[in-house]
């Protein structure tokens, strides 16, 4: 284990957070929120000093890393990031409890969007900005960001990228990791800017459009209003709904679009499955909720918004889907687990895994009928190798195991089954709101501190796709020399 390099990179990350904190500090200056300004500056100074000291103590010429170091770097970075990111809330006194602030920050960085705030509108502007900005940073990944800006990285940084980027198989789009990271962020920034402008065009004030775009881009879901997006114009709702769908698509496809390789895009099984699932869910839910709203256009709009919000694991809402019929709620619960495409900012199982799992089931069924059949699973026009199939199946098993564990850990709470289950799924899949007490109009405030920590951990597990965190926390990775 190359511990020195692992901590060296953590030092760099701490410095990066400090730099990122200057943005909300700027917002605090604009809105004359000097109490928040000092909170951000104190945290930034603390973080930069901490980062510099660690990076200096752990400077090393040995930049050889393996998969193990990749996992460790990602896990430490995300935990450290959350611990530091929570400080401004506490220092400014806006969220006095550190556990609450930590929950809120983890929820931000992991692009979950679950909140412990009961009155969002009481929060100061710069804090709201920071909350949503964590979505934007966490969406594409902090380490991917660091990789894009820091030169002389390890030759083998692909291990870090693999550990942080979601999806069963992480590939580069151009030969160098650094350039891949740059291109991904370039696409991310361009899409973000387009959405901000469109929302502004739809009548949102600048602040609102920027904050909501951060929430959409990271597929996070922190709003700044009690009723989330419900109060904005229909145009804005449609823009956000479509933008969420776009941010839930694998970013590699946008690169293929840029270099005009349309045929490769058309071959993407995941993209078609994603769009098909959205289309079917929107139609079914629209029919199902028609009796409530008694207007075809309203029910399609609300259904489209909610489906795209849930499948991309964003968690914005335009209606209280808690009040919808059971069929719609069941579909929403299912979509929570599906999640968006691999290589996007969305959470959940990822569509590619879902598709492969279904094909795997079909394959097994066929093998039972024809015991001597030689079969293979096709994806994106190619056969999936056995190793990937195995890892997808394993991932699903571990995923179920983790969800069940988290669910049991929080069942000491005095809430009903629906609330607890949906709260677990909503945090683990980085969705945000669930049903019952944690519905779109509710919050996680009434859970105990213990449960909040369990949820925070679940969110990190979900964002990092379980393995990096579990492996980095197992002592054998750290104890043995190599």
């Amino acid at each position: 284990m190359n511990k020195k390099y692992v901590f060296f990179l953590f030092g760099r990350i701490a410095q990066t957070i400090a730099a990122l904190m200057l943005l909300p500090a700027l917002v605090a200056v604009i809105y004359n929120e000097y109490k928040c300004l000092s909170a951000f500056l104190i945290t930034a100074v603390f973080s930069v000093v901490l980062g510099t000291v660690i990076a200096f103590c752990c400077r090393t010429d040995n930049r050889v890393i393996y998969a193990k170091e990749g996992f460790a770097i990602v896990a430490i970075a995300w935990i450290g990031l959350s611990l530091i990111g929570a400080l401004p809330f506490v220092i400014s006194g806006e969220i006095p409890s550190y556990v609450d602030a930590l929950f809120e920050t983890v929820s931000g960085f992991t692009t979950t969007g679950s909140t412990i705030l009961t009155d969002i509108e009481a929060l100061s502007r710069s804090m709201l900005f920071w909350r949503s900005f964590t979505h934007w940073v966490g969406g594409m990944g902090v380490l991917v960001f660091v990789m894009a800006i820091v030169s002389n990285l390890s030759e083998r940084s692909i291990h870090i990228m693999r550990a942080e980027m979601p999806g069963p198989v992480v590939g580069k789009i151009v030969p160098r990791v650094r350039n891949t990271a740059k291109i991904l962020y370039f696409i991310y920034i361009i899409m973000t800017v387009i959405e901000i402008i469109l929302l502004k065009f739809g009548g949102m004030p600048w602040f609102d459009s920027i904050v909501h775009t951060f929430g959409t881009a990271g597929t996070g879901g922190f709003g700044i209003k009690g009723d989330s997006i419900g109060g904005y114009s229909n145009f804005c709702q449609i823009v956000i709904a479509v933008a969420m769908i776009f941010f839930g698509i694998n970013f590699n496809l946008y690169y293929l679009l840029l270099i005009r390789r349309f045929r490769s895009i058309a071959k993407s099984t995941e993209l078609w499955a994603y769009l098909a699932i959205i289309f079917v869910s929107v139609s079914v839910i629209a029919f199902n909720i028609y009796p409530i709203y008694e207007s075809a256009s309203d029910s399609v709009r609300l259904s489209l918004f909610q489906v795209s919000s849930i499948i991309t694991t964003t968690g914005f809402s335009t209606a209280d889907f808690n009040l919808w019929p059971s069929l719609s709620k069941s579909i929403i619960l299912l979509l929570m687990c599906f999640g968006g495409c691999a290589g996007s900012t969305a959470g959940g199982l990822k569509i590619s895994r879902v598709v492969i799992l279904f094909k795997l089931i079909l394959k097994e069924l066929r093998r039972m009928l024809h015991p001597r059949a030689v079969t293979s699973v096709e994806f994106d026009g190619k056969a999936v190798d056995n190793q990937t199939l195995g890892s997808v199946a394993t991932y699903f098993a571990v995923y179920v195991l983790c969800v069940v564990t988290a669910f049991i850990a929080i069942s000491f709470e005095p809430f009903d089954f629906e609330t607890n289950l949906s709260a677990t799924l909503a945090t683990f899949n980085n969705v945000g709101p669930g049903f019952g007490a944690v519905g779109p109009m509710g919050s996680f405030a009434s859970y105990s501190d213990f449960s909040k920590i369990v949820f925070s951990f679940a969110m990190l597990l979900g964002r990092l796709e379980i393995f990096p965190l579990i492996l980095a926390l197992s002592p054998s990775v750290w104890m043995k020399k190599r």
Partner: protein
Amino acid sequence: MKIIIVGCGKIGTSIISSLVEEGNDVVAIDNNQAVIDEIGNIYDVMCVCGNGADCETLEEAGVSKAELFIAVTASDELNMLCCFMAERMGAKHTIARIRNPEYNYNNLNFIRKKLGLTVSINPEWMTAQELYNMLKLPAAVKIETFSGGNLEMIELLLKPDSALDGMSLIDLRRKYKGNFLICAVQREDRVYIPDGNFVLKSGDKIGLTAAQNEIQKLLKTLGIVQKSARDVVILGASRIAYYLAKRLLSSGNSVKVIDHDEKRCKEFADMLPEAIVICGDGAEQELLLEEGIDSTDAFVALTGTDELNILISIFAHSRNVPKVISKVNRNELAQMAMHLGLDCIVSPKKTVSDIVSRYARALRNSVGSNIETLYKLMDGSVEALEFNVSPDFKGMEIPFKDLSLRPDILIAGIIRARKAIIPTGNDMILPGDRVVVIASGQQMLDLSDILK
């Protein structure tokens, strides 16, 4: 620069490693998923799993934007096909590995022209060439030539009782008035670019440049002369052995080849009837003694197993064979062999990756003073580059003593009107010259890089 490499075997991996280190954007293609995964784990390259001659795979690798396309799969025919496809799909330059002697001797130019191949490489032939040079001048560990052979750079190992032991370079210059320059010294694991006060020690590996026609005389005055090998024993009837034996025989030497495989021996004897082919186990010391290893001038171990080559070379060394060369492909084993006292090691994959990276470097710098040749010396830590001086070079016609040169470089030679000049402080670069520069540490792309 974007470079695509098909085939990630020994040679492919070695090329990938050196090209990535030089800062190129490399895409690797191989049809074995496990191999390609491993490459992706170790090197910062994009990996594509598939057949390198398949349009779709090539498109996925972005062949239309590739400046250089290199095919080094195990099959000559596939390499040719890959390069043909790549060239048609927009790759600017293509390099194919073509090893089969049949393709190489009779119709290589025709194949190259028809397929649009820029360069074809034949590692075995190149290695044989390197071996031949070593056998011709056995005192040297390694010989490289610049500009059609006017200027040569040789690597020498100072033996324990060398006359140069404890001599500073200034004294050396005073004592031996030859036209030569010591431009790099490797001592233990460090490499120095020496100045006048540098004191040589026995055990050093030194690199010196001199005009070709003076090298024999120079070595004689330095007291490290050794007559060229006329009677050579080769172990292993491989392709390298074939090329080497052919070359040695045609210049009038006697060659004995030992291999344990009867069929291969027969084939070898059919191709080269003048060679003495012995069928027997080369690892058997009795056989080697019987075949006169004690009296031979040189012993070359070319079997397919690195370890065997090393061990038998040590045996040959212990029988006082004047020149022992072993083929060792794996880097770590080569280093171990050096520690065991074998100073002459050749590695086909290193030879080829040096040639390819030289070619890539020259492509990157198509304007300005471009690179004519590039050699990696002292296990790759020092580079010797030959530049064509372009008219807009800034340090033109200024004596070297007045030029502010970078500290870690050395101008080792100038080739003017086909004559080699070993420069002193009063010499200067003129238009039309070729300049040989020794550099350690950094990458040189242009002659202007020597200036501060």
